[in-house]
């Protein structure tokens, strides 16, 4: 029994070629067993059009390189089986990020800047003592930190975000989750006001309109909805208390989270 023929309509544009114009280009492939967008695009590049630009590295949904819009939805291409898709597949590069060419966008620059904005590292109070014992952490807390550390920086949450499409300076679910990761980590000792300065603004948590496109499309099933809600509650309370008591309350409980 013959398999399906799939038509891939792919966005084409090379911003570094002055003659290039944006357009959609169609490629037809015979579907093979267990075909996914990764194998399909590689076949298209090698057999039909060697100029087609796209990014893959791990092909195992762990590196975050292959985020793209598949029939309008942000997904990891290597994790998207064609058997789940109709016979016509439209591929577009992720919105929000700078286009490198065709389906390839630059997520690295944005994530690097986000890391600097959020100060994505442990803020310790004491100088590191190489001869001392390590700071102990209950396993349950370590697992909580790990859950928030699993972000692969693919950018799908930003591509799915209503606020990000309107304000390019929005921290996004990825940036807010990164801050939450450090709030949960007992080794991080940054102050409430340091946290508030970065995320207690319209570029931070208060820019979120609650669409939750991020949570719907995160390929790692990160707890974005709950973490964003948590951040909003904590920062709103901290903001209120600072007005009532003329001093923000401690934002970070030590040990387990409520």
């Amino acid at each position, binding site marked *: 029994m013959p398999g399906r023929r799939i038509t891939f309509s792919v966005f084409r544009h090379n911003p570094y*070629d002055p003659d290039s114009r944006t357009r959609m280009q169609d490629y037809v492939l015979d579907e093979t067993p267990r075909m996914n967008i990764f194998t399909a695009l590689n076949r298209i590049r090698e*057999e039909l059009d*060697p*100029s087609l*630009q796209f990014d893959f590295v791990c092909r195992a949904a762990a590196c975050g390189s292959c985020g793209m819009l598949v029939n309008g939805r942000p997904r990891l291409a290597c994790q998207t089986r064609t058997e789940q898709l109709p016979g016509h597949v439209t591929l577009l590069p992720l919105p929000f990020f700078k286009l490198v060419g065709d389906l390839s966008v630059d997520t690295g620059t944005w994530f690097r800047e986000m890391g600097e904005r959020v100060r994505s590292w442990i803020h310790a109070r004491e100088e590191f003592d190489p001869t001392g014992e390590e700071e102990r952490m209950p396993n349950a807390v370590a697992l909580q930190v790990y859950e928030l550390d699993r972000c692969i920086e693919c950018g799908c949450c930003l591509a799915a975000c209503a606020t990000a499409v309107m304000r390019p300076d929005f921290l996004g679910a990825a940036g807010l989750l990164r801050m939450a990761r450090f709030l949960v980590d007992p080794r991080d000792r940054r102050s409430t006001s340091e946290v508030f300065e970065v995320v207690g603004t319209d570029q931070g948590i208060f820019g979120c309109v609650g669409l939750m496109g991020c949570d719907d499309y995160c390929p790692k099933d990160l707890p974005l909805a709950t973490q964003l809600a948590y951040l909003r509650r904590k920062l709103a309370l901290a903001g209120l208390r600072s007005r009532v008591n003329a001093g923000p309350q401690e934002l970070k409980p030590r040990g387990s989270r409520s």
Partner: protein
Amino acid sequence: VMGMVVGRRIAEDIEWNERGFVRSAAERCARDAQAQVEERIKALAGGGREYVFDLRHRLEDVLTEKVGVFRNEKDLAAAVGELQELYHRSENLGLRSSGRGASPEVAAALRLPGMLRLALTIAYGALKRTESRGSHYREDYPRRDDVNWLKRTLATWPPGADLPALSYEPIVITELPPGERGYGESQTRQAAARTD
């Protein structure tokens, strides 16, 4: 001594002040490498008839079929021959696309000759090593031979060659000799001792 100090300082000054002159060995290396790659990219636009992905697919197949888990003389020799052919063909690579911007075809074409040289090093080294050792398994030489082959293969690539130059470095046992792994080390050693 004074003359040497002054002389050296004069040389440094000239090097520093000359415009358009390369200032150090590192810069010179970088410039040479850049010029080399630019030459190669220009050559790709010169109308060569070979397609990078055809050659690469054949490279993948040769290694999978003939330089795999179970190796033997016939297949390894055939692999070396075919890889050399592919290497010569790769000198005639052309482009099917425009090559402008971050071109995946140019990227693949720049990488292919190096991949072929690496494949040749693996296949040729395996052909020469007439024993089995670790993941190198020879159906025609199934035993490990510490008498003749307890040594490391070194490969260099003479300019213009289509095969690496192999040499060998003996393993120096410092504390522990290699142990029994159960694929004939002691038999080889006994056999060698008997013929001495």
